[in-house]
Structures are given as structure tokens and as C-alpha cells.
């Protein structure tokens, strides 16, 4: 491979430095530490091979996540020839715990209020650590489909195919994930910030 300048060496270092971040995402998806290691290794190798094509137009992490997406989907397709066992899914499709959020008439028990300056929060390192913590609290299948949707940007039909889910079950899992994350961010980030400012 022809290396045109010293810049690609810096790129190699940056690619390697992304390992931990990619591993965290892969572990969320695959729930198998060894498989996640393999997938990230394949991703880094593919990135090294094709780094000449990385023109710096996108953020490096965005480019790497694009490669990781295909590797993770391959791994999921290989490992999931059968649908998710219903016994695994039923507890996550139970909406009884959501009943705690709404009264019998379907009205919020604890009404959401606007978050102060959310755009500033999402740029903050500490906020993103809280978000990660909230993600680890999600039930496993809800976390997987939510990250396939929001990190990898897969369309619903692709997620249904790769996870062998119906559209309706996917909708429930994503709704549950969003409600749960909304509540977690509210109590762990926004509410404490409001208390400390009063």
C-alpha cells in the first residue's frame, strides 16, 4: 500500500485508540465478550486495510462504527438462525411495569417536565457517562435493538430481520427502552442538576 505522507501513521494510532470504544458497543450488541473481541479485531483490521480510503470527511469514529456495523450484523446473523426464544422475550414485552408510569386512564403519574438546555448536556462528557450507565440498566434485548436503531441507524425492518422480531414486538422494545432511558436521565442527570442550582 502506498502511504502518501506521515498522516496515515497518526491515523493508525487513532484507529487503535478507538478499540475500547468499539469494544463497548460490540459487547452491548453481542453480549459475548469473546465474540465482541473478534468482531472488533476484524473491524480494526478492515479499517487498517482501507485507511487510505478514509479521507477525513467523516469523523473517524463514525467511519469505524460504519465498519463495525457490518461486522456485528454478520455475527448476529451467524449466531441467530432461530428467533429469540419467546421465554427470553416475554418479560421484556410485559408492559406491567410501564403501568407504574401511567394511571388507569393512561395519564402520566409523574408528569415529564422540559429538561433545561438539553443541547448543552449532550455535549458533556459526564452526561454521556450517565447515559452509558442508563443503557446498562436496560433489559438485554431492549438494549440491543435500541442500539441497533440509534448507534447503527438500522431501519426497523432490518432490525426485525436480524433479530427475528415482529414489527409490533420491536415497537414495544424500543418504546420501553426510550421510556426507561428518559426516566433514568431525568433522575440521574437533570433532576440533580436542577436541585443543585436551586
Amino acid at each position, binding site marked *: 500500500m502506498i502511504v502518501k505522507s506521515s498522516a496515515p501513521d497518526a491515523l493508525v494510532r487513532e484507529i487503535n485508540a478507538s478499540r475500547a470504544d468499539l469494544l463497548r458497543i460490540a459487547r452491548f450488541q453481542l453480549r459475548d465478550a469473546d465474540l465482541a473481541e473478534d468482531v472488533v479485531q476484524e473491524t480494526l483490521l478492515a479499517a487498517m486495510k482501507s485507511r487510505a480510503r478514509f479521507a477525513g470527511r467523516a469523523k473517524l469514529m463514525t467511519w469505524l462504527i460504519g465498519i463495525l456495523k457490518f461486522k456485528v450484523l454478520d455475527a448476529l446473523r451467524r449466531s441467530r438462525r432461530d428467533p429469540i426464544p419467546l421465554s427470553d422475550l416475554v418479560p421484556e414485552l410485559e408492559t406491567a411495569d410501564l403501568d407504574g408510569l401511567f394511571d388507569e386512564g393512561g395519564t402520566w403519574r409523574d408528569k415529564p417536565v422540559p429538561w433545561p438546555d438539553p*443541547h448543552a448536556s449532550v455535549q458533556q462528557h459526564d452526561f454521556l457517562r450517565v447515559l452509558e450507565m442508563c443503557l446498562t440498566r436496560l433489559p438485554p434485548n431492549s438494549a440491543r435493538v435500541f*442500539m441497533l436503531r440509534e*448507534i447503527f441507524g438500522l431501519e*426497523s425492518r432490518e432490525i426485525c430481520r436480524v433479530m427475528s422480531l415482529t414489527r409490533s414486538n420491536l415497537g414495544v422494545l424500543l418504546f420501553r427502552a426510550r*421510556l426507561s432511558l428518559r426516566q433514568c436521565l431525568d433522575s440521574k442527570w437533570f433532576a440533580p442538576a436542577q436541585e443543585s442550582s436551586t
Partner: protein
Amino acid sequence: MNPANCRSAASLLSQALDRRLTSAERARLEDHLTICAACRSCKGHFTTLRLAMQSLSGDARVRRTRSTPH
């Protein structure tokens, strides 16, 4: 069609992030949002959540900058 309550409105807000709602669903949701500040807040929270996940995806550079100051 029955008017939406908060639970069904929140569900529609979530679905709207994953698919195009039907015109009937959109009308039902909009009618509810007009009268419900809590669900308008929920809509903002779901939007923030999407932005936050995008920020998380690109966050590696932020952290490396912090951990290895030049």
C-alpha cells in the same frame, strides 16, 4: 377514533422515530400534544435521547482529547 391518552401518545412519539405515522395517527398525536404539556416534554426528551446517542457514537474523540492532553 378515540382521542389519545398520554400512554398511547408517548407510544406514538416513540414510533414516529422509527417509521412514518399514518395521517390518522399524526392527527391523533397532534391533538393530544396541543392539550398536554407533559407529552410535549416527553417529545423533547425522546429527541434529546436521539441526539445524545449520536453524541455517544462520536464521543471517542472527546474522551481521547481529555485523556491525552497535548
